[in-house]
């Protein structure tokens, strides 16, 4: 059984992606017999090309994706290079880590409440500017997608920061910097010239994930993105929801085009790395000790603080709106507090929370069993995971969601499988498995295997070693992996929407569906409930080991 788990895991992770891409390729070539289209024909491609927004939507996908990736990577680089080891950095690290699990949709809503013309920042400025009413500006939904890009950056900075901090010890950051600085290099220049190359080599795949995700994100784009035209991925989802069946062909062609766009941009990014590396080597060999160190360092901290504050303030505004009675412009706080919004939506929230946790629980449980099975079979049969296998883990995160989920829905319909919870669970597993595996893999492999030898020497079978020694000793990392799995599942929008066929409502789908209505109180309540659902498991992951092992000093960090 154990021997087959790695293959099973791979199938659970890549099967839906492959089925989804194939399920998009056929309709994209004009073949969708269920709807009466028999290909191959250029019908789908022609319909896509006939859409007047195609060039603009494609450009938006590229610019928002590249800007969000470069922006978040840039902020993380500046802050780590300029400030790691300082007290400000320690504070920032503590502020940013929990933001990692704040769902994208909630962060986007919070940002909208902050920067919209009627939002909190404008209220702050209004008395100074003498505005009587909210200024007539298009901030949320601007046609360049800048607000959407800002929202993505605020959410990706915590992710890339965590990845960078995990890479630093292996990149030997501290001793390397000591050498560089003793040779007279400034803090920023020294870090960029010596540490950055090896750190980047380790966070390359997470950076690609950010690029692929930002180019094709749907929920953030629905909340903060432009509408005339919408981004390519949002348009694909619109086509999928159109009753006319021929729109499915257009959606399939769009999905393939989105996959091509992301693939090309990943290749271009890789090429850009080569060019930069060459320039960088020449720059490093040039011997200049400082290169704008003061300015770069001074930029890093405020950028990171603004990025953290925009999410934190956004969450505060969501909470305030959810309990606000009247909140007139340009007042900075509501005139009174009430629980009316919460009681009005109590049943809606608890129903959605039920489905959210049911799906997240089952998916995370499956991901955990598969991951432990793979790691244990690696341990028992002595098969080390290769670099290529690590790439496979990242693969489902590198294929844009809008490229394979529409096809997966079409595929499921064509084999007469029903939409609903079970397929949604399978679709969530594609995204949850890699994160659970990546989170548990390192602590699992760092466990001292001599413990297993000692236990076996005492007569314990491999199963008993696993259940009575290894898993209890790894309780902390196991719970962290569970928390990450639940947070990922809770935050997923598109898989629930498309594969659930509209019949599965989670806190995320409910919250995002409110975005067009503009009911700030309801949005505040649902987005806050969504955030709580993602954060709660992390509180448990921290609290539970401390409680269970309160009398075991060896297991408390």
């Amino acid at each position: 059984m154990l021997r087959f788990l790695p293959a099973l895991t791979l199938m659970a992770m890549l099967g839906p992606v492959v089925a989804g891409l194939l399920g998009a390729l056929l309709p994209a070539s004009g073949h969708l017999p269920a709807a009466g289209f028999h290909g191959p024909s250029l019908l789908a491609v022609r319909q896509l090309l006939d859409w007047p927004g195609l060039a603009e939507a494609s450009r938006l996908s590229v610019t928002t994706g590249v800007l969000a990736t470069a922006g978040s990577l840039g902020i993380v680089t500046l802050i780590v290079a300029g400030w790691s080891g300082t007290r400000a950095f320690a504070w920032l690290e503590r502020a940013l880590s929990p933001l990692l699990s704040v769902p994208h949709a909630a962060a986007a809503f919070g940002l909208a409440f902050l920067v919209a013309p009627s939002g909190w920042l404008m209220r702050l400025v209004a008395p100074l500017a003498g505005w009587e009413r909210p200024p007539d500006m298009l901030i949320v939904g601007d046609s360049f997608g800048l607000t959407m890009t800002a929202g993505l950056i605020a959410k990706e900075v915590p992710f890339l920061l965590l990845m960078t901090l995990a890479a630093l010890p292996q990149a030997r950051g501290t001793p390397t910097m000591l050498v560089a600085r003793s040779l007279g290099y400034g803090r920023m220049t020294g870090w960029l010239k010596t540490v950055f190359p090896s750190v980047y080599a380790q966070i390359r795949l997470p950076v690609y994930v950010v690029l692929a995700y930002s180019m094709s994100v749907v929920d953030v784009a629905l909340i903060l993105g432009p509408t005339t035209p919408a981004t390519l991925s949002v348009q694909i989802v619109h086509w999928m929801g159109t009753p006319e069946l021929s729109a499915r062909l257009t959606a399939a062609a769009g999905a393939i085009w989105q996959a091509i766009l992301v693939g090309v941009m990943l290749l271009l990014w890789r090429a850009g790395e080569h060019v930069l590396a060459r320039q960088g080597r020449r720059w490093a060999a040039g011997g200049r000790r400082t290169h704008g160190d003061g300015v770069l360092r001074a930029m890093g901290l405020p950028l990171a603080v603004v990025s953290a504050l925009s999410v934190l303030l956004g969450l505060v505004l969501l909470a305030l709106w959810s309990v606000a009675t009247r909140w007139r412009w340009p007042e900075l706080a509501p005139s009174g507090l009430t629980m009316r919004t919460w009681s009005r939506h109590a049943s809606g929230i608890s129903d959605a929370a039920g489905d959210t946790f049911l799906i997240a629980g089952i998916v995370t449980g499956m991901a955990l069993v598969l991951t432990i099975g793979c790691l244990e079979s690696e341990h028992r049969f002595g098969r080390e995971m290769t670099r290529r296998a690590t790439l496979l883990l990242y693969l489902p995160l590198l294929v844009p969601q809008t490229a394979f989920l529409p096809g997966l829905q079409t595929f499921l319909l064509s084999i007469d499988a029903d939409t609903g919870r079970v397929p949604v669970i399978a679709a969530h597993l594609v995204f949850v498995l890699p994160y659970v595996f990546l989170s548990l893999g390192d602590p699992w492999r760092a466990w001292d295997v001599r413990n297993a030898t000692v236990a076996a020497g005492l007569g314990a079978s491999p199963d008993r070693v696993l259940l009575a020694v290894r898993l209890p000793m790894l309780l902390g990392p196991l719970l962290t992996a569970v928390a990450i799995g639940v947070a990922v599942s809770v935050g997923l929008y598109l898989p629930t929407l498309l594969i659930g066929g509209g019949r599965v409502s989670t806190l995320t789908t409910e919250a995002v569906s409110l975005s067009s209505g503009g009911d700030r109180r309801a949005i505040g309540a649902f987005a806050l409930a969504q955030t709580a659902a993602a954060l709660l498991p992390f509180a448990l992951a921290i609290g539970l080991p401390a409680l269970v092992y309160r009398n075991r000093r060896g297991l408390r960090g």
Partner: protein
Amino acid sequence: MAEGLNIERVRIALNGESLVSLDAFIRPGEVLTVMGPSGSGKSTLLAYLTGTLPPAFQAEGRVLLNGRDITDLPTERRRIGILFQDDLLFPHLSVAGNLAFGLPRSGSADRRARIEDALSEVGLSGFGQRDPATLSGGQRARVALMRTLLAAPGALLLDEPFSRLDADRRVRTRDMVFDVARQRALPVVLVTHDAGDAEAAGGTCVRIGN
């Protein structure tokens, strides 16, 4: 049947290059000391004897414990106890929980009694409910020793088990280990790079590596 641990013409190689070759017979209560610099293949030999040699190695020869061929048995069925240089007490279990882990199944009153006897044998009466992390290095080493012995092994492997202790504790712990092994008539393989350990062991000493 010959009582003792018989290591019969064992040769271990990695990529065709021979690392260890050993032919030895250790009678009950005797100690075989294996000495060699680090990287000489000492831990490879121990991994072979415990059945945890990575598949990349090629091994030939046989190991017999009290006449029973254990060469191809999995670790948990060899009945070979091992002590590493770290005590490796399981941090999630109490001292008594660690001792109970290796104890063969029996009634709970009997188990409690045997655990208490084992603790008092090494001067740790009443330590059963303690968290192992709150014990001193010497106390932990003694708990680890009794944990190994309670599993009733047929032989004992020692992987530099005294090297983490300070000089004073080292001598006392070492004497205690050799004493209890002799009392229980266990064949012992001691791997060390410390000449004092080899001298205290008093048995045959072989050198491997250069």
